[in-house]
Every structure is written in C-alpha cells, then in structure tokens.
C-alpha cells in the first residue's frame, strides 16, 4: 500500500514538469494556431540556462538556486518573444502549418547552438539547496524536491486560471482562442496579443526545463524527448485547454509510474496507446471543444488545375533530363537521384493526403516504414524475388493505412494528425520490440536488389519508373471524380455531406491510397539501402516528409516534388561539407519560409500569374 502511494507521488512529480511544458504549448496553439515544434528547444534552453545561471548566482543558496531558475525561464521568454517578433510575425498569413516548418528550422539551429555553447557532455546541475534529501513516508524515501514539483504544478495551474479569468488580458486570450478574427475586428491589437502569448508559452517551457535541473543531467537531446510527450498531453487534454493539459499530464505521469510495474517492456508505447484510445473515444481530447472558426488566413485557395501547355512542356523536358541523367552522372550521383525520386513519391503521397484530402498526418512514416518492412520481410522469410517484394511492401502499407485510417478519418485537424502519429508510434514500437520477427532495432540487412537491378543505373531507372508512375497516378486520381469528391470533402464538409457524399468513406479511401503510395516509396528505399531499420517509421521520418511538402507548397501539385528534391539534395550535400549542417539547413529553411510563405512552387505560380494578369483574385 505504502509502495503504491509513493509510486502515485512519483507519477505526480513527473506530471508537474510535463504540465509546465504542455500548458505553454497548448496556450500558444489555442491563440495563434501555431504548432510550435520548437517548444522542446525552449525547454532544453531553459535547462541549460538554469545550469549556467545557478552556477553564476552560487547555487548553494536558496536565492541563488531559485533565482537562477526563474531568470533562466525569463531568458527563454525573451528568446521566445524575439522569435515571435522577428520570425513568426512575418508568416501568420501563410497557409496553416507553415509556421511548423519555421519552428522546425529553429529546432535545428538551437541543437547546434547548444552544442557550441555548452559542449557535448551531459551537465549535472546541483541539487536544490534545502531540498537535497528525502522524506520518510510509510517507511519509503521520497525526495523533498519532488514535493516542490508536485505543488508547483497545481500552483502554476491556479495562477494561469487567475490570469485567464481575472484579468483583461486573459479575457482577450480566451476570446482569441474561440475566434481570433472577431477579436481583431473588435480592435484588439493582435500582434501584441500573439507576442505576449508566445512569450508566456516560452516562459513556461523554460521553467519546465529549469526545474529539471536537480533531477537529471542537462543534455542536448532533451528537446526532442519532451516535444512528442508534450504534444500528446496537449492533444489528450484538448487543444487550448490548460486544465485539460493538467489532467492529461497527471494521466501520463501516473501511467508511466504504474505502467512499468505491470508492463515493464511497454515503456515505448504506453503513452501512444492511451492517446489513441482517448482520441477514438473523445475526438477533441478530454476537455477540448471542436476547433474554433478560422477565417481568411491564407486567403481563398486557388483551385488546382491540370497542366497548362507550358507546364506540360516543362514536365516533358524534366523527364527527358531525368532519362538522360545516367549519361552525365556517376554512380553516387545516380544513387542520390534514386533516393530523391523515392522521397519525391513519399512526399507526393503525403501531399495527396494533406493537400487533396485535407488530412494532415504527423505519422506518414508509418506507411513508408511498413512498406520497407513489408518488402524486406517477404524477402527474408519467403525468399521472394525483388519484384514480388515490391508488391508486398505497398500491400502491407496499404492494409495498415486501411486499418489506421478507419479510426483517423473520423477526426479532424491536429487531432487527426496526432492520431496518425499515435498509430505510427505503435507500429514503431511493434517493429522495435518484436525482435524475433523484425530484427528489432538491429533491423534487417542484406535486402539488396536483384542482379538485373543491382547497377546504380538500372536501379535509378526502376525508381524513375515506379516513382514517376506513382506520381502520375496520384495526379490522375486527383483529377478523377474521386479526387474532386475528396477535395469537396476538404473544402466544405457540410455541403459535401448534404449532397449525399459519404465523407468518412471517401476520406478513408484517400487515406489508404496515400498509405499505399508511401509504401511503394518505402519498398524501394529498402532495396536502395540494402537494409531496413525502425527509424524508417520514426517521428523524424514523418517530420522529414512534412517538411518536404510544406517547403514545396501545400496548395500546389508540383509542391511536394520540388520540396522533396530541394530538401533531400540540400541535406545530402550540406552534410558532406560541414558538421554544422543543422544550422545551415535550419537557416535555409527559415529563409525559404519567410521568402516563400506559399512554398517554393506556390511562389513561382504567384509570380507567373502576376506577370500574366494585372491583378489576381487571390
């Protein structure tokens, strides 16, 4: 009994720090609709700054320690404010999720920055003065500092509640969370409101990181470790709901504390299983409401059109150039080109889901990875030839998408995206833990192409055929009646519903198709690399796909192709030349986002339109 009580307290202590980070994320999203990928970076910066400041202020004293913690959080808040004013303010008018791309660029830069400033080694901060020891509870020791954390969570929750319900600023924030255009129309200075919200969110994330100082070594992967968990909590709690975030943090904290007693092997997946269940039962999280109205934003979308004659000529020219590539390129160049083609199809499949289907996915890697594993496993266990494996891979991915999609399409917006992430993580955990079948984290090796496709040239043509064919097929589907129906569901669910379209079913089919095409890309990838590892299903791969689509432009069909090629070529070439490739890539991404808020292709299209006509409706 006493043991269970202590374990319960352990859960509460972890919940508090999770809550600090998640509440900031939730508030930022509620008001500005920004999916702030850099929130984990703020958390990490908070921890590092606390480490430095606590030392500077002589951490031995109570003032020195807590002063350092609060100053660190304040410093992070300043960083947050600057980021909002210098960067994000420029791109609020961009299509949804583009801000995510900018914050992704920030994540990369902060990673290098932290390494440069604080060095590669883990840094263990001092214990909190006066709270070094443990208290005896029913014969078990419990750290004094964890009591402070347990209290800190509810205190912050209470302060936030007062702030939101007893101040004018709070009222405005709540109003903006419900309908920010209306708030703006009533004469509230929106940019000031957004800056202040972002600053508060960054402060909370910084505080969350800073109070970790006495509990764990500060290290340079803290950012990515916390960010998914924070997202999970925000979504379980309901976007924009601070109380919901608190409840969700307690659930996740307790789940981890008790989960390891019952299922010690399930540590990887427990949170995501719970998120999946909660989202299936409550599509808007525990305390969330259907998403607020978003008007205007990027302005009306220009409907996509079949290729103009110029576009057709350009495509033919590109195809000729691609066919001729083996004549001028070396073997390495051809392998890189094959990889670019594979990612192009991967991005196009995600774009089909996001752009055409209106369903954002944070877990598209599931289908890419399962395609890889499907192909690799059939080769390993049935010894089938490569061509058969190239059929089996997409089939596996398609079936997975069929199953996962059935649940996902009932949701919308970020909730849908997070449910796809949950399924991707579950797939990841299964592949990772089922070592006897999938090879676990050591993966499957020896998946090389059949002799006829082994030469880089042959494999390149095979990739060109399958990926090019896949992209053409995706295009055809987009302009087929099914594609129009899908777009109708995206643009106006209500109208589509009222003319008798079965929304869920069409979106479900669209989801499955997207998974299938990602599976083709994944199967080819397995043979290109000769091996498959769980990281093909990881969040990092999903994020890569998202970055490619956003970089190219969501609202154009050529976007994912250009985005994938740009991102992949940049990545491969920069990392050959410098160890600071993350900074370089991050800066390039941010510059591209600010320069081309509609994506690269969107920008080119706008330019063409503007030169063609004096004034464009958009």
């Amino acid at each position, binding site marked *: 009994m006493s*043991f269970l009580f202590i*374990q319960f307290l*352990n*859960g509460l202590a*972890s919940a508090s720090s999770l809550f600090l980070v998640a509440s900031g994320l939730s508030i930022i999203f509620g008001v500005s609709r920004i999916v702030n990928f850099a929130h984990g970076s703020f958390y990490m910066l908070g921890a590092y700054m606390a480490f430095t400041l606590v030392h500077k202020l002589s951490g031995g004293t109570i003032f020195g320690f807590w002063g350092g913690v609060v100053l660190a959080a304040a410093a992070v808040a300043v960083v947050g404010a600057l980021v909002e004013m210098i960067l994000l303010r420029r791109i609020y008018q961009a299509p949804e999720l583009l801000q995510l791309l900018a914050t992704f660029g920030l994540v990369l830069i902060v*990673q*290098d920055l932290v390494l440069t400033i604080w060095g*590669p*080694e*883990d*840094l*263990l901060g001092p214990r909190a003065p006066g709270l*070094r020891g443990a208290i005896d509870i029913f014969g*078990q*020791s*419990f*750290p004094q500092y964890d009591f402070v954390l347990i209290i800190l969570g509810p205190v912050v929750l209470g302060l936030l509640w007062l702030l939101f319900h007893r101040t004018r600023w709070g009222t405005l924030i709540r109003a903006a969370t419900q309908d920010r255009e209306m708030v703006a129309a009533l004469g509230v200075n929106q940019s000031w409101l957004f800056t202040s919200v972002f600053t508060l969110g960054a402060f909370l994330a910084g505080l969350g990181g800073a109070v970790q100082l*006495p*509990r*764990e*070594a500060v*290290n340079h*992967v803290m950012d990515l470790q916390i960010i998914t968990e924070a997202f999970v909590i925000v979504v379980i709690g309901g976007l924009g709901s601070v109380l919901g975030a608190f409840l969700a943090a307690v659930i996740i904290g307790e789940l*981890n*504390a008790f989960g*390891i007693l019952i299922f*010690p*092997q399930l*540590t*990887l997946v427990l949170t995501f299983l719970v998120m999946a269940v909660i989202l299936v039962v409550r599509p808007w999280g525990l305390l969330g409401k259907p998403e607020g109205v978003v008007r205007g934003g990027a302005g009306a979308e220009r409907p996509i059109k079949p290729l103009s004659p110029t576009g057709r000529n350009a495509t033919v020219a590109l195809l000729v150039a691609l066919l001729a590539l083996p004549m*001028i*390129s*070396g*073997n*390495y*160049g051809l*392998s*890189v*080109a094959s*990889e670019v083609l594979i990612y192009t199809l991967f991005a196009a499949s995600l774009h089909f889901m996001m752009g055409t289907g209106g369903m954002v996915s944070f877990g598209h890697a599931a289908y890419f990875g399962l395609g890889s594993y499907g192909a690799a496993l059939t080769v390993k266990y049935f010894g089938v030839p490569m061509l058969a494996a190239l059929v089996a891979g997409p089939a596996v991915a398609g079936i997975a998408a069929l199953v996962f999609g059935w649940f996902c399409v009932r949701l919308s917006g970020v909730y849908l995206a997070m449910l796809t992430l949950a399924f991707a993580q579950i797939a990841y955990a299964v592949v990772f*833990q089922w070592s006897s079948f999938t090879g*676990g*984290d*050591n*993966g499957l*090796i*020896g998946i090389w192409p059949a002799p006829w496709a082994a030469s880089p040239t042959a494999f390149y043509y095979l990739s060109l055929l399958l990926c090019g064919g896949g992209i053409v097929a995706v295009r055809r589907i987009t302009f087929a009646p099914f594609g129009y129906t899908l777009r109708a569901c995206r643009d106006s669910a209500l109208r589509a519903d009222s003319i008798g379209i079965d929304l869920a079913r069409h979106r479900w089919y669209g989801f499955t198709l997207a998974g299938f095409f990602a599976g083709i890309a994944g199967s080819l*990838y397995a043979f290109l*690399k*000769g*091996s498959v*590892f769980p*990281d093909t299903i990881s969040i*990092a791969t999903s994020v890569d796909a998202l970055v490619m689509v956003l970089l190219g432009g969501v609202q154009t069909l050529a976007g994912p192709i250009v985005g994938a090629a740009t991102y992949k*070529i940049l990545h*491969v070439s920069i*990392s*050959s030349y410098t*160890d600071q*490739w993350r900074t370089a890539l991050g800066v390039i991404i941010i510059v591209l986002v600010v320069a081309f808020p509609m994506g690269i292709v969107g920008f080119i299209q706008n330019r063409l339109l503007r030169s063609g006509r004096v004034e464009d409706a958009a």
Partner: protein
Amino acid sequence: MDRRTLLKTIALATLLTGGQAGLASAADTIKIGEINSYTSLPAFTLPYRNGWQLALDEINAAGGINGRKLEVVSRDDGGKPGDAVTAANELVSRENVSVLFGTFFSHIGLAVSDFANQRKIVFVAAEPLTDALTMEKGNRYTFRLRPGTYMQAAMLVEEAVKLPAKTWATVAPNYEYGQVAVKVFKELMSAKRPDIKWVDEQWPAMGKIDGGATVQALARAEPEAIFNVTFGADLTKFIREGNTRGLFKNRAVVSLLTGEPEYLDPLGDETPKGWIVSGYPWEQIKTAEHDAFLKAYRAKFNDYPRLGSVVGYNTMKSVAEMIRKAGSTDTDKLIAAGEGLKIDSPLGPISFRAEDHQSTMGGYIGKTDMKDGKGMMVDWRYANGADYLPPSSEVAKLRPKN
C-alpha cells in the same frame, strides 16, 4: 532562366556528376573513409575523432604507409542508418576510398557492415557493441575493434560471481544492447551460481527513464544486488534518484560502462562508491605505451582522453597496419592481412581473431570511488579481451559461412 535558377542547375549538375575535385591528390595518398554519429552523439564521437586524428598525424609524420600518406575523408551520419549508407556510398563511389571505418550505434554498424559486404570493401567497425556484427550477421569484410556486448558482460561476471548476493534485479535500456547484456549476464551468472534468483527487471526506454518510478520499483523487489546497463543521461537520472531514495545503500551494484570517463565524469559528486564497473581510468594507467599516448593527446588537444579517444586511435592504427601488412589496398589482401593482425595499442598489444574478425582489445574492471567531488575507478585491473572472446564453437555455430 534567371541567374538564380542557372546557379542552382549548375550546383545540382556538379553534385550529380560527382564533383571531380580531389582527384589530383588521389594518386599519391591512400584515401580512407570514415563515418560516425558526430552530431547526434558528440559526447562520445568528438573525443573519438580526436583519437583517430592523433593516430593519423603520427602515421603521416612517420612517413605514411609504404611511402604513401593516408588521407581520411570523414562524414556524419546524423544517427541514421540510411544516411550512413548514403555516406558510405559517397565515400566508396565518389571518393574511391580503400577502406571504411567508424560508427558508434549497433544498427548503423550493421548497416555499413552489410554495405561493405555488398560492395566488397573492408570495414573496421570502431564502437558498435552488438554481438551480431561478428556473429550471426558477421561477414568477411567486417572487422570490429571494441569488445562486444558478450565480452563486456563476461568481464563483469567474473567479479560479480564473487559477491555473496543471491537475489538480483536488472535495469537496462529497452533495446538490443540492453537486452543482450542482461541475457548474457544472467546466463553466465546462473551457470556459475545456480543459487541466484532473479527478482525483478526494469526496461526503461532509452533516454526516457522515469528515474523515481524505476528506482522505487527496483527497491520494492528488495534485491541484494543490481545489474545496471543504463548509461548517459538515463544513468545520471537513475543514480541521482537512487542516491536520494537510498536504493544503493547496502546493495551491491554491477554496472556496464559506468567507469568510462564519458559516463563517469558527468556524475560529479553523485558518483556512487563501490560499484563494480567497466571503464577507463586514464589518469592512473602507468604503462609506457599509455603514457606516450596520453602525453601526445594532451599536447595536441589540451584535453584528457576519453575511452572514445582510445577507440578512435586504435581503429586508425589498425587500419594503417592492415594496409601496411597487406602491402596494397586490394580488398582480399587487406582481409588476409587483417586476420591475425597485431598492433601495439595504448592498452597493450591487441590482435584481430581470424575466425570472427573481433579484436582482443580489453577493458578495465574496477570499483567506483569519489575524490574531491569527482568520480574515479579504484582497485582496477586490465581485463585482456583475448580471455573473454566468445567461444570458438559458438562462433562456428552462429557465423554465416562464406
């Protein structure tokens, strides 16, 4: 086509045609490719890079190999096996390197090893610990320097069986390295001490340990001794929680890798006393060959070596010696030279076993202690890897024939 597009096209074309730069110097140097997770694991890989750079300088200062200087082309894999294969491909296809070496993570080591097998090029794996690399998934092109998981665990078992403890609990990160380490440790322990009972096991996800909850769960099982495999940030969190909650009081702990400076130094004044660990007490090793290495390393980098530095140094030396002995960069000759290859390392002479291409580099086994708020190893001894190699019968059974 405006200027920007033109520039882009040119850049792309250069990239795809494989930029012919560097050809001029290729004739008189031997090019060697190197890959590691520099951005994702800097704490281990940056000292490792210093290590091989030091060795490279020494080799070239002494006139190179067979009259030719060595040139290392190094790449970062970002911690991703797919990117490691791309880098390996670039090094082999575009840079025309004669040998590959490097890698830290087991799965990346396996990916590059399989690539080496496919492309028929020698790969000397520096740090990956998985036994599969030399056993189930071993191939004739792959050599491995660092003692694998089996060897690491076996070295500790020798000390652990001497403990009186009869009930044991284990805590290990939830992936292959942790699983295999626990499995080997349990098997070897139970074989020598059938009276031991295994009372609990904890499997925190790597990098995500819930310190308090894990410590409490272990304490509940009331084991007399604990076998720990967590490392890095997880270890620090585990130790701090364990210290606060008195988990380690009157309990023996046997812990893999904890004595390595990479993991020991961040612990500072939290370093637990009396743990049986494997590690690298660099400041106390007083052999002539280690002194020379230490002096050279400090002079060049103004820093002390970590275990990674020794691994990098030894790997570079092994590659160079392999080329020197083979008298050419022909792959088959390199493999023939590599089997049974002997080098003098800062830790003493080591050699590569012919049957599984595993080196006999060993490790230091001792106890942890603390002095002036810093962790250190005491009562240590060097465990020669040759004494802990997996039995030949086992290798013959598991290793694919080729």
